[in-house]
């Protein structure tokens, strides 16, 4: 992957609340905001920060399954709904399962690189609480190959990642891995408690690791994971502006309030093929490799990571795919506290998918917003300090069972 041909920036990020079980205001029996409300809230917040719709050249929206969750297609048409000023501007919706947000980001980046836009309003949205989890599982199974659905688990994706966890347990030890999964859960919730928009913001459970060690119940769920190992069902949207240097000027955004995209990797694997090694995320590994090469940096230069921990085991596997630990050693790396907010390399500082929430199509954009907040000092109570010698951040957006992956490397724009 080559170095980017021109400088690309991101700024003006915004996350709505991740609504779902665990939030006090969530009541499955009462009406809740729909796609339109989430898109409008997030989009308007970003527009306000970039000086209005007139400064936007293009819109991109990432979404996975609105056609099924909400009976809504043609989501690009919701971009002009944000603001009349966006009417007749080029817009598109992109989809790559849970990597839809990641794809929205690279689509925006490429528009800037192609010089067809200086300011791209980039959004992600998903509203999933419209159906019970048992039926949501059917919809989310669309991220896998449809021909595998019949033989798959009732909870298709938890089933897939339970298989991965089972393989990891077998190869590298059950007890030490479970301990790491529990630690991952604790980190996620502790981080989310600092962030008012997070789904687990209201979580007051004591002794999180003990809770997370609950024995999986294959009768009602999957073999190797319990509910604490899984991200929850969430509604939410995220929005950020992707800009050229000219775009920053046009929007009146100072570089100190922006991050620079210094490299990215976008990788696809064959949907119909099973993973070569269940205990490894090889597509993620490749995407990260390309992103780091494109940025011209190494793993040692990373100060923080937003990874796609749709399940706690994915967190461990991501640590290894990035190259922070060898295969089989990611569990100990996590158990030792290295990925905690005060650890060597803080992961998912707003809770990640397990803690902040996982409105699938929004997640990739939400990760970029989190990194933008951290690198520009806008993270409030959840602010971390990056070491001066490791000023880079990495985000990984993953779709399906490690099939569609986007990895992006960022640093402060003012560096």
């Amino acid at each position: 992957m080559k170095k980017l041909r021109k400088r690309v920036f991101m700024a003006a990020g915004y996350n709505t609340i991740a609504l779902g079980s665990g939030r006090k205001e969530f009541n499955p029996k009462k009406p809740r905001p729909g796609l339109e409300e989430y898109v409008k809230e997030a989009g308007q917040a970003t527009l306000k920060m970039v000086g209005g719709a007139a400064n936007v050249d293009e819109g991109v929206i990432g979404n996975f399954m609105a056609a099924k969750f909400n009976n809504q297609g043609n989501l690009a048409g919701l971009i002009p709904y944000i603001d009349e000023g966006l009417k007749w501007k080029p817009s598109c919706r992109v989809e790559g399962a849970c990597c839809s947000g990641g794809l929205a980001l690279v689509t925006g980046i490429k528009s800037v690189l192609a010089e067809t836009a200086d300011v791209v309003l980039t959004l992600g949205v998903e509203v999933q609480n419209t159906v019970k989890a048992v039926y949501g599982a059917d919809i989310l199974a669309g991220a896998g190959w449809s021909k595998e659905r019949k033989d798959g688990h009732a909870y298709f994706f938890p089933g897939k990642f339970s298989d991965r966890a089972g393989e990891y347990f077998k190869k590298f030890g059950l007890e030490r891995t479970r301990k790491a999964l529990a630690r991952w859960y604790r980190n996620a919730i502790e981080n989310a408690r600092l962030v008012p928009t997070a789904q687990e913001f209201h979580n007051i459970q004591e002794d999180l690791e003990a809770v997370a060690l609950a024995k999986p119940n294959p009768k009602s769920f999957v073999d190797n994971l319990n509910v604490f190992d899984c991200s929850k069902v969430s509604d939410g949207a995220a929005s950020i502006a992707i800009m050229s240097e000219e775009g920053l000027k046009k929007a009146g955004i100072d570089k100190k309030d922006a991050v620079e995209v210094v490299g990215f990797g976008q990788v696809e694997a064959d949907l119909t093929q099973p993973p070569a090694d269940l205990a490894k995320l090889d597509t993620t590994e490749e995407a990260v490799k390309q992103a780091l090469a494109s940025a011209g940096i190494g793993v040692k230069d990373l100060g923080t990571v937003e990874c796609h921990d749709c399940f706690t085991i994915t967190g461990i596997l991501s640590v290894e795919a990035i190259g922070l630990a060898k295969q089989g050693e990611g569990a100990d790396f996590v158990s030792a506290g290295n990925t905690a907010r005060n650890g060597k390399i803080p992961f998912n500082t707003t809770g990640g998918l397990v803690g902040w929430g996982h409105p699938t199509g929004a997640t990739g954009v939400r990760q970029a917003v989190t990194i933008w907040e951290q690198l520009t000092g806008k993270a409030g109570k959840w602010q971390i300090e990056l070491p001066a010698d490791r000023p880079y951040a990495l985000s990984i957006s993953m779709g399906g069972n490690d099939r569609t992956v986007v990895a992006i490397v960022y640093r402060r724009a003012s560096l």
Partner: protein
Amino acid sequence: MNYAERLENVTVLGASGKMGSGILLLTALEMADLSLKPENKDKQFVLNAVDVSNQALAGLMKYLRAQVQKAAEKKIVALRKVYESCCDLVDNKEIVDRYVSDVCALVRPTTALESAYASGLVFEAVIENPALKIKLLSQINRNCALLNKDSANAPWFFTNTSSIPVHELDEKAGLGGRLLGVHFYNPPAIQKLVELISAASTKAELVEFALTYAKNLRKIVVPSNDFAGFIGNGHFMRDALHGIAEAERLSKDMPFAEAVYTVNRAAQDFLVRPMGIFQLIDYVGLDVCQYIMSVMGERFKDEVIHSPLLDRFIAAGVKGGQFSDGSQKDGFFKYEKNRPAAIYDPGTKQYVPIASFQAACDTKMGPLPQPALTWKSAVKHPKKEAALEEFFAKLAAMDNPGAVLARRYGERSREIGLKLVSDKVARSEADVNMVLTSGFYHVYGPINNYFKREMVK
């Protein structure tokens, strides 16, 4: 006939009722699970839902469909395996829908009692009226005998009676030991407890079958000996009479509504029960309680099991019980959003708003032991036993009127429990406690040391 054969053709009598609908649901699920087993694929399972009203039967089918759907969603992991070979069923949604239609297809709603004549098992859940039960059971038994000469295939009968001795029903209906008491608790789909009552004449095979059936339904079985009221109502009716007597005693010094409020609250808040005694009477229905008391009263001659107060209420049309959607009808209490809001005064025949006297009554009753322990918090308490121990130890040392009333209540409840054992209704103290904790959702059994201490003092 093996277990599956016995369940091939079943009838539930009174299927639209509160108890009948739950029994029908659980039996339908059990039969469906049997019918979906490969070895039973050639069997035709039939579940007759017999009741007197077509309208109620329509309501029953609606209830059944909704409940089966919930059950299917809950056991989707297992159901995917069951329907593994059906290539057309891919999504959970498709599997749930198919299961719902498979279960409902077993059920034949009907007002014709004749449907029962071909059944191998008849589950009786009609109102608590011995004459009606005897009439229905004997009619079915006679006609089955006419249709089926092979006595090995003679139908078995389960009765959901909560009070009538099983041997009386068996003898009077001429069932020859083919009757067993299988007493579910309300609502049967949720309550874990089943009281199993065999008469001396009851055939052992029925008991064996019922134990498998109850186990498959994931119920807790407590055997009760065959005395009117059994363990559950044996305790509840006497407990209710104590509550009524206490309210009547207090009403000499305070308005009746306030007396009811005070006793109800003592039983709920001071005794850490899920609801107060008058709310429980409303829940079951004043008329149902009256009927059970009359059944028990006739059979326990040395005891007065009768409440003139209940008679007065019922005569005035105040009956409690529930609407078909499960919401509470007015009884001792008037309910708003299923919560007590006012209390009936039999003098004026008016409901008096609780808010008009609640604060004054609470003050009069005095404080609860601290730290407070509500029933809800006790259920979830990680150290429940210790928390209850502490709460009641404090209660024992208090002399405010609420605490004194509660202690008298706890003592009486304990006395009733012990008497059930000494009268040989229950086989053990543990059985009595199990019935109250699993059938009435109490957080502790009536036979405990919390109130014993008081008696010693």
